[in-house]
């Protein structure tokens, strides 16, 4: 099975899906001839042409709003927001329009579209090229939110997202684009939305993570294994709908739960996971539901010392695991 980088898996999946379904179009800033600032769409303009790979003006609201219209009139748009940090001008279109169209029209109109956006820090991107924005959208019924962590999942989940009948936000950690490799079959497999994966079985502590943090959680699990702490890592893969069954099964088994996310802690996605675990698995808990997450600053600072201070890393997760294990 060929090993591919995370970004190759995404690019090849876009290409194979576009070959399969002529109704798929791509829209975004620099997605055409340049192939995207990260090259996630490299080569697609050459293969599919101006009509299906559209370089848009710098207008995020238009990218999403016009995609909603295109979806209503028979296309399947996959739009790219160049950095997740720049998604906010499109917030109204995503939350007020795409998310609510089916509900408010009583199933008259659906919006099958995907919004891809690179997110996350650790790449010297500072406040406006590093943000984790998932919590703004996981709050919203009508949206689906996906955060893959491996090339295999990126392909399988992107296929599911494109073939879904509802709007899907697909967040790709930009630090993983070229640093993460993995085997990706050339078959037409899908990874269903809403299914988490246990990526490291264990018995004493459940660590729940997604995206880059799913990798750091695995690293931390390996390190504490040397101390005899058995960690089960759950990679959520899809944040909305959340696979509560896999989460709760694991926590009921281990009795302890640590949630890891890169976004600042307060009101972040992990807060919802913690609340669900507390509500649904209270009788099984042998310690507090805890979280390792970013600090309460309004963005990732630039200087490398400050950025390292901000970022969750395997060491911080190891520390969190040890503290919880001591309960």
């Amino acid at each position, binding site marked *: 099975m060929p090993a591919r980088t995370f970004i190759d898996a995404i690019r090849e999946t876009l290409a194979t899906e576009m070959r399969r379904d002529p109704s798929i*179009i791509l829209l975004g800033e620099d997605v055409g001839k340049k192939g995207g600032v990260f090259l996630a769409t490299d080569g697609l303009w050459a293969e599919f042409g101006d*009509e*299906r790979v559209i370089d*848009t*003006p710098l*207008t995020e*609201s*238009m990218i*999403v*709003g*016009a*995609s*909603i*219209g*295109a*979806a*209503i*009139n*028979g*296309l399947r*748009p996959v739009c790219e927001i160049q950095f997740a940090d720049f998604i906010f*001008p499109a917030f*109204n*279109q995503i939350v*007020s*329009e795409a998310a*609510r*169209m*089916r*509900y*408010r*029209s*009583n*199933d*008259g*109109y*659906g919006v099958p579209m995907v919004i891809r956006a690179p997110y996350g820090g650790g790449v010297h991107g500072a406040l406006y090229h590093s943000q984790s924005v998932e919590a703004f959208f996981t709050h919203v*019924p*009508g949206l*689906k939110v996906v955060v893959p962590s491996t090339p295999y999942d990126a392909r399988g989940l992107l296929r599911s997202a494109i073939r*879904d*009948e*509802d709007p899907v936000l697909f967040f790709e950690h930009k630090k993983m684009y070229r640093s993460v490799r993995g085997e990706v079959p050339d078959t037409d497999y899908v990874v269903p939305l809403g299914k988490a994966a246990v990526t490291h079985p264990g018995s004493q502590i459940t660590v729940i993570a997604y995206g880059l943090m799913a990798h750091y959680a695995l690293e931390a699990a390996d390190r504490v294994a040397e101390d005899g702490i058995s960690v089960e890592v759950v990679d959520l893969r899809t944040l909305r709908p959340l696979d509560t069954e896999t989460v709760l099964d694991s926590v009921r088994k281990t009795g302890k739960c640590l949630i890891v996310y890169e976004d600042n802690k307060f009101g972040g996605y992990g807060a919802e996971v913690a609340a669900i675990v507390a509500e649904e698995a209270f009788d099984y808990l042998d310690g507090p539901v805890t979280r390792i997450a970013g600090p309460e600053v309004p963005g990732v600072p630039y200087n490398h010392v400050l950025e390292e201070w901000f970022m969750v890393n395997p060491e911080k997760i190891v520390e969190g695991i040890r503290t919880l294990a001591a309960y």
Partner: protein
Amino acid sequence: MATTRGSDTSLAASVGLSDADLVEMYRYVALARALDERMWILNRAGRIPFVISGQGHEGAQVGIAWAFQRGHDWIAPFYRSIATCLTFGMSARDILTAQYATANDPSSGGRQMPGHYGSRAQNLVSVSSPVATQLLHAVGIALAAKIRKTGQVAMASMGEGSSNQGDVHEGLNFAAIHKLPFVFVVENNGYAISVPAARQVSVPNVADRAPGYGIPGVVVDGADVLACYVAARDAVARARAGDGPTLIEAKVTRLTGHSSDDQQTKYRSEEELATERARDAVPVFRAQLRDAGVLTDEIEARLSSEIKAAVEDATDYAEAQPDPDPATAMRHVYADDAGSSD
């Protein structure tokens, strides 16, 4: 909808329509007004909690919508678009079930406020409350029409206040770059709730902004139904030919408060309101059609009785329809939430 015959009046022939077209257009204008007036009565009688009105906009809406191909082209309307929706195929019952928010209200099944019309069957995009978002939907529909080569034209309409939103700039720019089959209609009634257009728009006409996008901007008198039709007909032809979008600004008037929760005499003088009545398309169009011999006593009597019957029927029908069942309220958040009892 344009079918001319040799026997048609010179008025109809002057705009390439038949007398029958003009009578039908008048019927929609008058029906929209009659339904709208009924909505206010029902509101004041405590039967429906909220009304947002199209009174003063009907002539422009019918004239413009008449230029589009029903069941083929697309319209992304706004909350005053009663006449637009009627012209594009929604029925009087459809409009009044929306006021009552009944289970079978085709716009939303009782989920949205009155005025938020929409119909998949009629290519009318579901209306929301954040203003001007629909322009981008119509632009995207036009993009898909161009890519899919369907020959469709998409139109979005809104008021002059809404036209200040950033989505309008983003959408017009994109539609102009790609010469999309798109028509932007601004129904300028002079007020954004309470704020006059002079405090909303920095130029005399919203259409003055069109050259900034390299597209034609046309100002029409919204009380002149046929001028509105001609402007839209030309814009649709241009769009369908691949020559890109047009901005049409119809100067209309708002004969009612912003909504049933607004008292417009707080910010508009009685004199102004009296003057504005002269710009009402309903009597203007009627007089024009009577002068031209299109509208006779006989035809008027027939229309009047048809419209009265349609309004009574729609009221009785909507009154009798059940509320939505809360057991259905979780349906259609996603495509697979259809529910087994659908």
